[in-house]
C-alpha cells in the first residue's frame, strides 16, 4: 500500500480540539444545506448525518497516517476531519465531472485510495471482509498501523459481520471494528422495544459490543456523542490492534431520516430533537465550555463563519458540471473487450 499519506497524527492540543469542533459545526451545517440541495433537486439522493457528528470527528482525530480507514456510507465528517481536500469530497457527493469516481457511485460512496480510504459500498457490511483482507495485507507486509472500519447497528445482523469478525479473530488481524449504533436500521430498532411500544421486531437480542467475545476478542461500548471520548477509545484500540482486533460500539441516535427517501414519522417518535441535551452538537459545546476552550461568543463566531463558508461550498458544487457521457464505458476492464469498443459507437 504505497500511497500518498495525508492523514495527520492527532495532536490533541486545545487548537486541535477547537479545529475539531469547527469541523463538527461544518458537518452539521453542510448536512442541512445538502439536505436542502436535495429538496431542490440538485442532489438526487443524500444520506443525512445528524447525530453521528461526534463519532465522525472522533474517528478523524483517532486515525494516524499509518492507518487505513474503510468507512461506510454515513461517515462524511470523518473525511473532513481527516483533511481530505473538500474538493474531492464535495465533487463526489454532487457527482460532478471532477469526482474521481466520475459520478459512478451514489453520494457519500467515496473512494480515496491515495489517502488510504476504501471504496464505500452500498450493500450493508459488504466492505467488512475487504477491510479484513486489507488488515491481513498490513500484517503480511509487516507495515505499521491498523485498519479501522465502520458500520451501523443493522450491519451486525449481516452474514458479512459474522464472517469478518471470525476471520479477524482467527488471523489476529490488526483491525478495529467500530459500530455507529444510532438505534435504527431504517425503521427497525437495534434492540427490543419496550413492551408494546412498537410492532417492529428488533435487529438483535445480544448487546452488540458483547458479540466480540464470540470471536475471542474484546468489545467495548462507548458514548458516541462526545468526540473526545470517541477519539480516545478509538486511538487506544488502533494502537493496540497489533495485539488483535477490537470491537467498539459507539452509542448515538439517528436524529434525521435514514435517507432522503425515508420518512421516520411513519415508524417512530423523534427521541433526540435538535438542540436537546443529547444532540452531539450541544453535548460537545458543553464539554468544550467546561474545558474552557469554548465560549458563547466563540460559538456564535464559528457559526457565522462556517455558515458562510458552507453556503459558498454547496453553491459551488451544486452548479459544477456533470461527467461527460462519453466516459460511461471507461474502466470496466483494464483493456476494453470487443463489445465495449462496439458500444462506444452507440454513445453519440
Amino acid at each position: 500500500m504505497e500511497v500518498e499519506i495525508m492523514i495527520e497524527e492527532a495532536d490533541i492540543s486545545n487548537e486541535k480540539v477547537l479545529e475539531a469542533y469547527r469541523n463538527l459545526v461544518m458537518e452539521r451545517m453542510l448536512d442541512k444545506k445538502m439536505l436542502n440541495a436535495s429538496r431542490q433537486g440538485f442532489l438526487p439522493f443524500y444520506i443525512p448525518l445528524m447525530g453521528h457528528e461526534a463519532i465522525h470527528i472522533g474517528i478523524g482525530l483517532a486515525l494516524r497516517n499509518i492507518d487505513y480507514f474503510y468507512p461506510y456510507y454515513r461517515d462524511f465528517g470523518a473525511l473532513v476531519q481527516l483533511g481530505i481536500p473538500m474538493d474531492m469530497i464535495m465533487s463526489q457527493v454532487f457527482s460532478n465531472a471532477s469526482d474521481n469516481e466520475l459520478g459512478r457511485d451514489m453520494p457519500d460512496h467515496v473512494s480515496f485510495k491515495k489517502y488510504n480510504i476504501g471504496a464505500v459500498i452500498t450493500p450493508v457490511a459488504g466492505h467488512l471482509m475487504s477491510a479484513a483482507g486489507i488488515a491481513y495485507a498490513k500484517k503480511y507486509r509487516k507495515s505499521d498501523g491498523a485498519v479501522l472500519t465502520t458500520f451501523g447497528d443493522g450491519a451486525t445482523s449481516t452474514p458479512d459481520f459474522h464472517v469478518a469478525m471470525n476471520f479477524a479473530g482467527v488471523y489476529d488481524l490488526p483491525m478495529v471494528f467500530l459500530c455507529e449504533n444510532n438505534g435504527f436500521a431504517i425503521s427497525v430498532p437495534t434492540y427490543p422495544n419496550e413492551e408494546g411500544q412498537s410492532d417492529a421486531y428488533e435487529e438483535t437480542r445480544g448487546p452488540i459490543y458483547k458479540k466480540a467475545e464470540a470471536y475471542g476478542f474484546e468489545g467495548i461500548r462507548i458514548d458516541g456523542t462526545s468526540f473526545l471520548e470517541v477519539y480516545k477509545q478509538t486511538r487506544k484500540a488502533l494502537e493496540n490492534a497489533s495485539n488483535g482486533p477490537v470491537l467498539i460500539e459507539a452509542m448515538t441516535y439517528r436524529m434525521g431520516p435514514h435517507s432522503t427517501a425515508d420518512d421516520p414519522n411513519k415508524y417512530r417518535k423523534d427521541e433526540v430533537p435538535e438542540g436537546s441535551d443529547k444532540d452531539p452538537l450541544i453535548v460537545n459545546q458543553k464539554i468544550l465550555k467546561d474545558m474552557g476552550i469554548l465560549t458563547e461568543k466563540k460559538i456564535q463566531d464559528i457559526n457565522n463563519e462556517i455558515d458562510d463558508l458552507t453556503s459558498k461550498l454547496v453553491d459551488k458544487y451544486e452548479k459544477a458540471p456533470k461527467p461527460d457521457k462519453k466516459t460511461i464505458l471507461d474502466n470496466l476492464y483494464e483493456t476494453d473487450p470487443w463489445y465495449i469498443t462496439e458500444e462506444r459507437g452507440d454513445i453519440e
Partner: protein
Amino acid sequence: MTTMTMVKALNSALDNAMERDDSIILMGEDVGVDGGVFRVTDGLLAKYGKERVLDTPLAELGIVGFGIGMSMAGLKAIPEIQFQDFIYTAMDQIINQMAKLRYRTNGDYTLPMVLRTPYAGGVHGGPYHSQAGEAYFAHTQGLTVVTPSNPYDAKGLLLSSIELNDPVIFLEPKRLYYATKGDVPDDYYTVDLRKANILKEGDDLTIITYGPTVPLVMDTVNKNNVNADVIDLRTINPFDVDAILNSVKKTSRAVIVTESPRLFGVSAEISATIAERAIDYLAAPILRVSSLDIPVPFALEDYYVPNEQKIMKAINKVLQYR
C-alpha cells in the same frame, strides 16, 4: 374496479390473499411498521398483525431462508428483498435450497413461496439500487421468474404466483411502481403465468419484451407507427415459446428489448430459441436492445438504459434488412 398504481395493485393482491388464507406470512426489512420502502406492504401490519407481517433483521439470507422454512412447514411465505441488488447474500438459499428442494427430494417437500423484490432502474439509485438481474434467476432450474408491466397484471400475476405450489421470483419493475395508473379489480383474480400477453398486433416485425421496458416499447412503437407484434412475456421462465414462435413465423423479423445488460442475458435465450426453431422464417438478423454491458452508473443512468432512439435504430435495421 379502481384506478390505481402498480404499488397499490400489489398491495391489494397481498391484502386479498392474506384475507383468504391465514397461512400467508410476509417478512422483510421495513415491511412492517414502515410499510415497505416503496409502500407495497403499507397497512398490512395494522390489519394482519406482527405474527403475519414480520420486520426482520438486516440479512437477506435470513429473510429468504426463514420463508423457505415456513413454506416447508405448510405456511406460504412471501419474503421481500428491499432491492434486488441486495439479494446476492441469499443466492445460496435461492439456488441451493429454494430452487432445488422439490427436485432433489422428488417432491417429498414442495415449496410454495413468492420472493418479491423491486428491480431494475428508474429511481436514479446507482449501481446498487438499479440492477436488473433476472438472468441469474432465469438460469436457475426450478424457479418461476415473473415480472409484470402494468397494475392489472401486477395484481393478477402476484395472485397466480401465490397460488402456485412452487417457488416464484417476482420481480417488480420499480420504474413502473408509480409511473402510470390502470384499472384494477378490487377483488381477487388471477392472470395466467404461462401465457405471454400480445399487447399489439402487426405484420412487419415481432418485438419481445417484459417488465420495465414494456411501456417504453409501446410508446416507441405507437409514436413511430411501427406495425409490430409486441409480446410482453410476463413470465421469463418458463417463457411462452409458442407466442414467440408463432409471431416470428408470421413477421419474419424479431427485436428483443430488455433493461438488463445484453451479454449472457435473458434476451440471448429468446434469440437462441428463435435461431433454433424458426430460422427458415427469418428475413433479418435477430437484434437485441438492452442496457450497456456495465454496472449502472449513478450520474449517467439515462445513457445506460435502452431508449426510443436505440429501439428505433434496431427496428429500422431489421425492417430495412434485405
